[in-house]
């Protein structure tokens, strides 16, 4: 894995995230002023009006209220609220109602327990867990518009540096968009509790240059690599029921329950970010998924050592 960067919401790399940061500074300034003023008054009151020994037994003037003061400290907050509402409504509209330009890349994200499925309808690509999208030059924008669906329970897609989060809810279609303006790897994770392994439903978004993205998508569009050198592994895959859940394009495997494995080796991690994509981790995962991600929905297939080795070799051929 590359060194993860701080996923601070204050380090935006995309327009929605940037609009949110700008709004947040405005809101923080106003609430900051309110805090300073009210806290200062509180501190002053506590210090100035503390009961002194000399006053023991004497009651201070019994003041019941003041209509003018009440009006003042009702009107001022209402004005503050009006200002905040106006500023916020603008940003809501700008982000949510942004029209989709013809240049936009469309990706359908389907949330599963506990991994992410990505489909690129315009490109005929199906992949999992690591999202590749092109960088968006502000002068010639190429945003990515995401359609969010769920195959089971609720999830939430959250990459703090790219956008606020939007939930994936079964039987509902949600939409969001991002236009990352610099290349790089952006991290996040599922933000809506979805079951046992919610914590390890990690997100990796690779923002590529136009050339890199074209290269990546071309290779993703191909069927699985030739497997003549790993025939025993492929046979193990086909007989051990793997094909019921997984798809490897160009073979008989076309299951939809688990991630598409056609180009498994193009990914840096397995199990949706739970482990690095190394031979050792692959073997460990195949032997007992619960060792890496306890409660994940992949069963341990109870394979022999020989089968495991063969399978790992086969997996590693899926570039």
């Amino acid at each position, binding site marked *: 894995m590359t060194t993860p960067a701080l996923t601070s919401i204050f380090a935006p790399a995309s327009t929605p995230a940037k609009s949110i940061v700008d709004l947040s500074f405005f809101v923080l300034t106003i609430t900051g002023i309110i805090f300073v003023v009210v806290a200062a008054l509180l501190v002053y009151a506590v210090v100035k009006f503390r009961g002194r020994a000399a006053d023991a037994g004497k009651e*201070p003037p019994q003041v019941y*209220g003041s209509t003018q003061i009440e009006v003042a400290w009702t009107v001022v907050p209402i004005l503050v609220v009006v200002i905040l509402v106006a500023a916020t409504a603008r940003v809501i509209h700008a982000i949510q109602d942004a029209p989709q330009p013809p240049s936009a890349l469309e990706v359908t994200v389907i949330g599963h327990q506990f991994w992410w499925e990505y489909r690129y309808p315009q490109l005929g690509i199906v992949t999992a867990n690591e999202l590749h999208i092109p960088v968006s030059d502000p002068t010639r924008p190429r945003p990515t518009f995401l359609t969010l669906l769920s195959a089971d329970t609720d999830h939430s897609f959250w990459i703090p540096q790219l956008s606020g989060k939007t*939930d994936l809810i079964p039987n509902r279609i949600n939409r969001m968009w991002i236009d990352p303006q610099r290349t790089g790897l952006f991290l996040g994770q599922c933000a*809506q509790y979805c079951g046992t392994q919610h914590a390890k439903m990690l997100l990796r978004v690779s923002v590529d240059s136009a050339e890199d993205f074209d290269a990546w998508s071309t290779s993703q569009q191909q069927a699985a690599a030739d497997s003549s050198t790993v025939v025993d592994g492929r046979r193990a895959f086909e007989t051990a029921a793997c094909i019921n859940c997984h798809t490897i394009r160009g073979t008989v495997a076309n299951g939809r329950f688990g991630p598409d494995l056609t180009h498994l080796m193009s990914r840096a991690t397995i199990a949706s970010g739970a482990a690095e994509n190394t031979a050792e981790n692959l073997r460990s995962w195949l032997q007992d998924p619960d060792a890496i991600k306890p409660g994940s929905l992949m069963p341990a297939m109870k394979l022999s050592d020989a089968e495991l080795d063969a399978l790992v070799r086969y997996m590693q051929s899926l570039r």
Partner: protein
Amino acid sequence: MASDAMAIHGAQIDRPTWGETLHVWVTTVDHKRIGLLYILYALLFLVIAGIEALVMRIQLLSAHNDFVSPQVFNQMFTMHGTTMIFFVAMPILFGFGNYLVPLMIGARDMAFPRLNAFSFWLSAVSGFVLYFSFLGGSGLYGAGSAPDVGWWAYAPLTARAFSPGSSSDYWTIAVLVSGLGSVATAVNLIATILCMRCPGMTLGRMPLLTWLYLTMSLMVLIGLTPLSAAQLMLLADRYLGAHFFDTQAGGSATLWMHFFWIFGHPEVYILIIPCFAFMSEIIPVFSRKPIFGYPVMVGATVCIAFVSMSVWAHHMFTIGMNSYANTFFMITTMAVGVPTGIKIFNWLGTMWGGRIQFKTPMLFAIAFLFQFLIAGLTGIMMAAAPFDWQLSLSYFVVAHFHYVIVGGILFALFAAFYYWYPKVTGRMLSERLGQLHFWLFVLGFHITFDPMHFAGLLGMPRRIYTYEPGRGWDAINLIVSIGALIQAVAILVFVVNLILSYWKGARAGKDPWDAWTLEWSVSSPPPAYNFASIPTVASRRPLWDEKHPDDPDSRYE
């Protein structure tokens, strides 16, 4: 006379046996005893839910820790939240209400004493039902145990397909039954306040505590019941094959969310309003002035009650509602901040020009004001929906609501304990232990919940049993966990104070704080019948009128 002999020679009095005492307490219909039962019950569950929090904080001390499995962690946050809301906060606040309201309105008991007892036992049993899930939740498939679906139990995670076994049913039934108990207590409080005030106590002359409990109880009637309805629907889904939240059959997961939060948001106001009540009684007494702006305080509270019914979907800003819906809920959420702020200003106005006594109740009250102010302001931040698209479902919102619940509600409860303990027991709580409790708890509270905001700003979502190292979350989580341990110590000091002072505390007398409402006119503890004769009042502060016959409130109101 035999009775004289008993009075003089104490040793000749027959002390009740343990069995007799137990019988008295189990069969009591006296509002004071029932109030105490609620409070003790809640304190027990406070400790249990606190332990659940500590388990989570130990697990989160470092990245990839394995103190507990993900299954156990997920049960911990579900049980912690469910217990704290339904089996700590609700019972303890109803307990205080039960004890204080009849005394403060000059009545002998609540309107329906037997219903009162029934409500308590209903709530008590439901708490044990919830915890029985640890043993019995395996149900049909040997799966589950304690519920692990989060305290909101979002659909379709609670459907049979995703929650086999009975763990979700324990959550549903326990919370449903306790909800019935809460509604019954609310009915009781409303009938008591409207129908049993002593002569002269018009609605405009009753203590603010009573106004706020009246408002809170009305909110319970229409705020708690949506959850009960939704839970009946969930049970129908799980047991009768209904499809209310069955997304495979066209059902809607968001419908559960709407129903839940139509309950969930008023619920948090139901919890905070009694705490406003405590503050409105305590701050005046320790500032030696009447509450500033009594009518405005009433109006603001009623305003909060109404507006808070219209804000619920600010818990759902991320579910993909359209921009008009998001804007509407943003507006109402910002709006509810106005009457809430007005209350803070009025407490400030009460202290202003006063002679503040820094006894323990007032220390907790002052901390409440600072902390509730901050909590309200982070709430305003999240009302700005786009900002909430980042902050929601992260540790920022966890920090916000703990700031309200611990920094606001719990601090107000501590103030209430130190203030009314003398009335209930006849003994003062130790000031020295109280100060120790206060400063330790303030320290621990801020060490935990101040940095927690930053974990959210750095992208840490909630409800995760572990996290990746190197995200900038490691040090923050360590500090947060240390603060939790400090708070645990502070609670220990509090419990020691409660127990020790019961036997060793200074005798309190009727009115140790020189206060002004009717409960301070009877002995400490009050007799079973509360008042020898039902009093008549002529102002909001009947005892002030008594102590200052030359300058009574009745002249100015």
